[in-house]
């Protein structure tokens, strides 16, 4: 069971997050201020941390900086009401691994924590496989079973990202940031359109679906059971 340390001063927000993460099977420890949070991070060695930026006692970024100086590599998700691009850049530069602006959907938070916990290992593998799906990164070809899937470069990029993170919920914001490198949320539902096209190619009419739409949250690529 993964252990998550939450450092957040607002007790109501903390309660919501704790309850949601506990439902998903995480063990959550909560600190309401930076100094105590830093102590807990040192003593209980969590698998991941959620750190609010503005904390009483010690600023969230200072906590992260202190841990990084002690060579603690625990992945950290920074929470902040400061949503400007510059704040985000600063948050990531100070050692945060991901940055989420308040207010956020709880699913988004959980998806990002899971993504942090299951970061794809650097692999020399040139062929990605998920169930019957096969992606050759050198030849730039895709196959489902024996069926060859013709993909446009942009679709290939999307599928590659999803296969590296199969069985994980990928939210629209995550996809925008990671696949298209968008630093803003476009007016149109870009992600849905692209995903629709990819799904059309990956899941044939008489095949079991692999790309699943999670209502109101995002998408998951699952190996067919």
């Amino acid at each position, binding site marked *: 069971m993964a252990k998550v340390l939450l450092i957040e001063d607002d007790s109501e927000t903390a309660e919501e997050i704790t309850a949601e993460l506990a439902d998903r099977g995480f063990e959550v420890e909560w600190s309401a201020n930076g100094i105590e949070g830093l102590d807990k991070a040192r003593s209980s060695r969590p698998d991941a941390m959620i750190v609010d930026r503005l904390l009483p006692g010690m600023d969230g970024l200072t906590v992260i900086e202190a841990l990084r100086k002690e060579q603690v590599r625990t992945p950290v998700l920074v929470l902040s009401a400061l*949503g*400007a*691009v*510059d704040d985000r850049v600063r948050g990531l530069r100070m050692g945060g691994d991901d940055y989420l602006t308040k*207010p956020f959907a709880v699913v988004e938070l959980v998806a990002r924590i899971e993504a942090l916990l299951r970061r794809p290992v650097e692999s020399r593998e040139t062929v990605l496989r998920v169930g019957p799906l096969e992606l050759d990164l050198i030849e730039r070809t895709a196959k489902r079973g024996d069926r060859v899937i013709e993909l446009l*470069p*942009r679709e290939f990029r999307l599928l590659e990202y999803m296969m590296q993170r199969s069985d994980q919920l990928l939210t629209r914001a995550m996809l925008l940031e990671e696949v*298209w490198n*968008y*630093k*803003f*949320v*476009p*007016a*149109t539902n*870009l992600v849905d*359109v*692209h995903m*629709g*096209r990819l799904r059309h190619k990956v899941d044939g009419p008489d095949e079991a679906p692999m790309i699943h739409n999670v*209502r*109101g949250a995002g998408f998951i690529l699952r190996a067919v059971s």
Partner: protein
Amino acid sequence: MRQPQFIRSNTFHWALMVAGVFAVFVIVLFGFIYWQIDDYLTARSDRVITLELEGIAGLSPERRLEAIDEKLRQDPRGVQLAAIFAAEGHRITGNIESLPPSLRIDGPAQAAQIVKTNGKGREHQVVRAIARRMRNGDVLVLGRNVDEAREISHVVGEALGLGLLPAFLLCLLAGAWLSVRAQKRVEEVNQRVQRIIAGDLRERLPHRNVDEPFSKLAIIVNGMLDEMETLIHALAGVGNDIAHDLRTPLTRARITLERGRTNATTLEQLQAVSDKAIAGIDQSLTIITALLRLAEIENSRRSASFADVPLHDMLREVCDIYEPIAENKNVTLQVAVRHRLAVRGDRDLLIEAVANLIDNAIKFTPEGGRVDIELLRGGAETIVRVTDTGSGIGEQEREAVLRRFYRSDKIRNTPGVGLGLNLVAAIVKLHGFRLAIHPGPGCRVEIICPDREAAKQPARPTTGQAVS
């Protein structure tokens, strides 16, 4: 003791200083005049007595005595001095008691202390004098009292007193008056400014005529106040718009929740209600995010992180992302890039701007229409042009589309926040580029990027059509 306020004022200090400098200057000037006149008079006396001495010396000894007596007799003012002393030192004739010891015989005219004597008494004087030894051994001394110099110095001193003191006082008075006047104006301005601070935005600073610096300053400040008043009113208008646009989805969410709480009987119904409410709240959040983003860009001073952005690659990339969306709507999206052109800027922001324009173009183009993206060179400018076959933006709407939350009546039912073009305009302005919106069939929007040399001048709309 408290000094009156004007004495402490800067203006008064200046006046005091000017008066002091003026006084010193006048004193030096008068001194110089006195010195010059004194010098002149001395030189003249010296010349006269030297000439007389030569004249008398040329006479026979008897005629000399007569000439001296004659000379002294014809001197009603008593400034002439003359005497002949015998070789051994006693006076033969004249009105000088004895041969002055400081007087050099056969030397040039010089100042000498003598004792003047006549029938009535003796008197010590400092005079200009000259002495010469005659052939028979007698010493002839001629002198002249230059009392005029002393009189002149007296006159000069009086003039100085009469002129300088009133002038000095006048200076001080003028200084005090100016200082009091300036203070009154400052106080007047202060009162008005206090009223402005208190919230009366219509208040302006007083000014009299244009040529006076104080009035000039007041006119400048008034111009600034005009601009600020307009801006504040615009901002208040935006505030109302924001409140309206935020309230609408929130109200909807509230009603949905309220009705759901009363009417929902199954979990599914409650979930449907929650989804609807969340959608409403999300829309409000989207608006807030867009507004914050707008504020972030407008206040950004990010030109430090500018780099060369290859527009040809960037346009292709953005089009690649939007192609499926256009296809879904059966709109042809085409990019025509003839040159490889780069501009200096923030890549992410420029992508955002172009993406917004393309997003808009696709949204407002009916099925079967087309959207063209072009990269052009014209003059010293690089132009990104997005043309669509939608309903276009009317002449009278062109300014309005850049207003926050403006949504044309024609498109009331198209989803969107109404901040897209504001974002584009803000990004364009940040880069020192220009945004031009052309009317006509469909809509043509251009981001005009002047070359860097040309961009140094402030970006201003060059034609009636350009808005920046």
